[in-house]
């Protein structure tokens, strides 16, 4: 885990685009907050491997959000129950669940639906917030490096080592 965290720190200070780090965090949140052995997580895993996001960030995020998920279980169940039993949505769910894939994905389970909907709802704003935070972190980091000639030298040395 420490190795993973160091990798994240490295990634934060590397040339990786902020969206890669943000997306890693979001995918980890999706995997961690929703029940892991669900069909939709197979799709998430596929996308995570296909899209060039930061895997280390995703794995650490998965571990952290799995812990948070346990605390949020009752809330997710309540959200799922509200959505699935809402009379206004009954006309939507009935044809929706006629499709076997959604039933197989356990989307008619209060916890699965509640956690998935909640995570997806917060993921879009979270993506942009994390993006901004990464950019801010990097500019702050560069400012610190610029103030200390020794750190600047080490950074140049590290770049040189990579290139050579």
């Amino acid at each position, binding site marked *: 885990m420490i190795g993973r965290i160091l990798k994240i720190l490295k990634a934060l200070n590397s040339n990786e685009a902020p969206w890669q780090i943000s997306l890693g965090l979001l995918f980890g949140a999706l995997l961690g907050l929703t029940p892991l052995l669900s069909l939709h997580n197979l799709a998430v895993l*596929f996308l995570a491997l*296909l*899209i060039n996001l930061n895997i280390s960030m995703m794995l650490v995020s998965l571990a952290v959000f799995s812990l948070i998920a346990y605390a949020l*279980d009752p809330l*997710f*169940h309540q959200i799922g129950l509200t959505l699935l039993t809402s009379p206004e949505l009954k006309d939507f769910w*009935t044809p929706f669940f006629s499709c*076997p*894939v959604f039933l197989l994905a356990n989307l008619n*389970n209060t916890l699965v639906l509640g956690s998935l909907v909640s995570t997806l709802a917060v993921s879009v704003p979270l993506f942009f917030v994390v993006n901004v935070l990464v950019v801010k972190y990097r500019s702050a980091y560069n400012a610190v490096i610029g103030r200390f000639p020794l750190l600047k030298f080490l950074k140049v040395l590290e770049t040189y080592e990579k290139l050579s």
Partner: protein
Amino acid sequence: MKTSARIFRIQGIVVFVVVAGFIAAFLILLLDSILKDSVENQGTRILRAQVDVNSLATSLMSQSIDIGNLEVANADLLNENLLEAGRIKFDFDLGRAFSKKIIIEDMRLEGLRFNQQRKTPAQPYRPPEEGKSEPQKIEKETPLSGFGFAQALKFKSPGDILKEEKLETLESIDKARNEIESLKSNWQTRMDQQLNPDVLKQMQQRIQNLKAQGKNLKDPAAIQAFTAEIQAVRREIQSHLDTIHNFQKNLEKDIRKAGDLAVEMKGLPQKDFARLRKKYSLDLKGGAGFAGKMVSGPLKTKIDKGWRLYQQISPYLKSRSPSEPDPAPPERGKGQFIKFPAAQRSPDFLIRKAGLSLNIQGQEIDGNFSDLTDDPQSHGKPFLLNLTGGKSERFNGLKFHLSLDRTRPQARDSLKAEVKSLNIPPIPFGSGIALTQGRADIQAHIHILDEQNLDGTLDIHVQNALFTSSEKKNDEVQRLLGKVLGSVQGFYLKVRFKGTPAATTLDIQSDLDQILAQSVRKVFDEKAREFEGELKRAVTASTKLPLSETSGWTAGLTPHRKELNSQESAYQELLKQATEKVLLNKVPGADTILKQFKLPF
């Protein structure tokens, strides 16, 4: 800082395929053991008894599952297996399984055995959380428990009978006594309140006063006031008389009622005696009869056992409302599944047809069942089970047809069974008498409506019967019965049962009663008479004292009758006195005044 990066990494797909492949391979390799554990755990949870599976093999290609040696332990007898299945093989629809529907088109169950001894005792079932509920204890039933001429022949002691039985006489006397006491107390209150003797005295005093007053009247105005007073007094007397007449009428009614009750009570000991005689005496003319005594106990036990089994199965055959949410609170981290009605409603579980091969007490029986489903209403077909057995050592033929129809709101279930020439195992009836051989033709028709109302018949014809008995010199009836039964070669039993799970009544008829009645009546009747005499004496002795008090019931009300009569004559007398002729003396001009103020009497 330059932060441009490729969006996709193609090598990720390769990694995904490898990872997914590993997961799939892992699942496929472990699928059998996962399913086996699942069958064992879920089966144990649902049946509340240990379920063991020896082997389970799935074939995704042919979409079939093969289960070897399934054992379901008896929760009440841990050394015994309630059910054993040598092999269960079925095909399933993988496509429908994605919709979480288990549809089995064809199934084969081989080597089904019941009540077999286990090699190792089963573990008692412990519910995951509750663990507190005591398992329902079921009476251990011996194959012939309840049968017995010995019990049938023994007359119970009248003293013991009266300890166990409630006599209607005593209960009715208690009830009637309370009623009479309440009547008496009501009458006392009414008499005290409305016909108080003090009122009569006051009335007499008023008339005396009027008499005294009437002697000195001269003034026409005073005479007029006087006559008005007489009128008022007469009205009051008349009102009292009306009340008395009314009371007399009601009192006579109540006295008659008390008399009737007393008469009714006197007839009750006879009724009690007749009831107890029918229940405990073996009078073949009117009692329960030998055959009834012999079979009613064990039949009742079997019927009760059948009801229990039926009620255990029933919940699994009922349709669930498709939109009904699971009422149980979800376990943390598991959530709750909500069901939605499909565009076309169909069962979640269905076995369309299945072939069976059973082994019951060493006899091979073949059969089949069809349309076993969790939602018979949407499926539209009832569950049918047919069993057929060919000629064997035990019987010449067996047919069994069960139909559980839950396709309509009102459940209609029926069972037809026919056994031809069943080889009867030795049946000991106690005290040395036993049916050692015989062949029975058995036919049963049972209908259950709405899971509550049972109506059925059972016909048993026994042929080639052989009764044996070890003679007992000191018991004449026993000896005679043994002799008579020894000559019996065939008999029939006709049982009609009706009722609900709470109360099932049996009506048993048999020619065995007539055979026995003709043969042993003389000796037997003497014994029965002796018993009945004792029973009658015991009933009379128990009811004598309470009955003696019934004669006083009317006597408790008659003093009121006397009082009413006495008051009636007193008021009549007062009414005669309260007239102007008696009270008003002759005064000059009084006639003219009276003519002017003519009174209405």
